[in-house]
């Protein structure tokens, strides 16, 4: 009897958790769509979008350059020692370019932006929530979603593909550094392989991924910050800390999960 009760309780708990997660996903989706459509509502926010693009995109350039250079170099190094075993080191350009454009570029760009800008979004909006600044916007008849979230969505949709493109290009040059400059593969062979192997679909697929990641990252980070006050784990500064942590962890995990789903459709 006790075992039956324990089983029932476990099932009920699982059911509750599942319902909560589905409701939360619904809330997140509504949050995104509201924020997205408000980009096109009056009053338009061009200056805020430019400001956020500068923050999310421009200010991430350095970290993207740094990580893409080393990612490309590692790919070049690892690729060379693997390909040389089969006597096909000339294919290094293809290996580096395809890995970067299809997978690593969009994923690593998203992860880097989460760390640099996503956490900042969650923390900033969270602090605004707990210090009643979002309530103040509402009392002034300013839509907080339009004021805070829409410009960030627009800026992310612009910044993520551009940063991904930058990551891809610099990563390919990183692979060239190790493959050609250090390990002696001819420059012409390396770049001709890049040119011949990369198809337009690969680039489009990479951009689709980066756009989806932009939506995931900006929505999760803004959503966590916006609803900081509803968190039960902690209030005030602790609540903001929980929101920021959860925004970073959840969006990073979701980037990897959606990457797998998208890859399985795009391949």
């Amino acid at each position, binding site marked *: 009897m006790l075992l039956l009760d324990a089983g029932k309780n476990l099932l009920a708990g699982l059911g509750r958790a599942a319902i909560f997660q589905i409701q939360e996903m619904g809330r997140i989706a509504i949050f995104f769509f509201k924020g997205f459509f408000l980009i096109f509502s009056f*009053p338009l926010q061009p200056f805020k979008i430019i400001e956020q693009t500068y923050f999310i995109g421009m200010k991430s350039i350095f970290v993207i350059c740094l990580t893409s250079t080393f990612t490309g170099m590692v790919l070049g190094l690892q690729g060379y020692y693997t390909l040389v075993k089969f006597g096909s080191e000339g294919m290094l350009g293809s290996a580096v370019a395809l890995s970067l454009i299809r997978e690593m570029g969009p994923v690593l760009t998203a992860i880097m932006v989460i760390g640099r800008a996503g956490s900042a979004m969650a923390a*900033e909006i969270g*602090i*605004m929530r707990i*210090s*009643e*600044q979002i*309530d*103040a916007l*509402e*009392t*002034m*008849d*300013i839509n907080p979603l339009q*004021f805070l979230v829409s410009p960030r969505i627009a800026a992310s949709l612009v910044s993520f593909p551009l940063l991904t493109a930058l990551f891809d290009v610099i990563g390919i040059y990183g692979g060239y550094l190790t493959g050609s400059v250090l390990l002696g593969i001819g420059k012409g062979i390396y770049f001709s392989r890049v040119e011949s192997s990369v198809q337009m679909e690969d680039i489009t697929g990479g951009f689709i991924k980066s756009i989806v990641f932009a939506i995931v990252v900006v929505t999760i980070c803004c959503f966590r910050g916006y609803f900081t006050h509803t968190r039960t784990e902690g209030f005030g500064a602790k609540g903001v800390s929980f929101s920021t942590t959860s925004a970073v962890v959840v969006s990073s995990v979701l980037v990897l999960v959606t990457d797998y789903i998208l890859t399985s459709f795009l391949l």
Partner: protein
Amino acid sequence: MNSPLIQLKEIKKSFGDNHVLNGIDLSIYQGKVTTIIGKSGGGKSVLLKIIIGLIRPDSGSILFQGQPLLEMKKKKRSALKKKISYMFQGSALFDSMTVFENIALPLKETTSLPADRIRKRVNGKMEQLDLYMINNKYPSQLSGGMQKRVALARALVTDPEIVLFDEPTTGLDPIRKNAVHMMISDYQKKYGFTGVIVSHEIPDVFYLSQQIIMINEGKTLFQGTPEEIQQTSDPAIKEFIYGFEKETNGLVGIALPLQGEKRFEEKMAKLKHRQPAFSLVLLTLQNLDELNRKVSQNILRKIVLLIKNSLRTTDTCFRYKSNRIILILPNTNEYRARMTCFRLSNKINDREISETKQNPSLCFSLAAGVAEIKENSSLEQAITVAESRQNIICNFRAPNPEEEL
């Protein structure tokens, strides 16, 4: 008076088990300043947030010029919101914006005024509020008082028809406080806005307001003019506005019946969550009614002091009716409650009540009854049980002169 501009009917709001508003009814009239007073944590700020629509009430209705706010269409509600300004208790300034940007924000975002007119209006408002040379400063670089004035400037910059002030003078020095009061008063006369102020500044708000509303225990206790509230004979209102305890409750540190009832409810809620048992002790001073009022008050005060000294810090002692004192003893079963009564009677019997010396005819007794609280029993039921079990634990009478010799 004319028909009310804003009317709240039977507004209820709870946050979990905390019932903040238990059926508020009030009316706010156009062109008048209404001040809401009441104890801290009594739900005054929640009430303001309900009026402006930041918090949705659990039940009840809010009428704006007779039209229910909660049923209004979005467009209409938005148009109404444009007429209202709100000044937050904690200022709620945007900390990443300068003072100028903060004040200009509502104009920039909700009007189509050109930049130079916005600048002119913001500068004018800042000048009126003695906010000089701080245009480019950030809120964190300002003192608390200055932040309040910036928040006030932001609330008034749109020339609203209704302004809700949530404790506008908290944290200000007396000079600034008077300046803010004067400014609200002057502005109200000049522009004729309807003001709703939540404030503790008594009696200052009586000179500033045309209407006073007092809320207590989540209900409207009083609504009337400042003159009426000052002449009221209601002891609860007098106690609040004059800042002293009622004569009948002029006992050192003894809680009021309402506080006691609240404590009982808290303990009962914990009992429902399988917390340890608690007991109620009913102490009745018999024959006290026959004594002179002043003498009986003194006796009661002394006995309460003796009782309070022998209680634990978690125990609650409150007055119930004229001659009854109730003790709520957490984590105490009936046996331990009886032991508490026994110790109490020993302690009281050891002491001398001086009034008995001065009044040879004085003769009264203290009876005690114990009830261990069961789930779902009310305070009245517990009192009835304790009353049926009452025994006299102390007798007081004037010492016999012969015994003294």
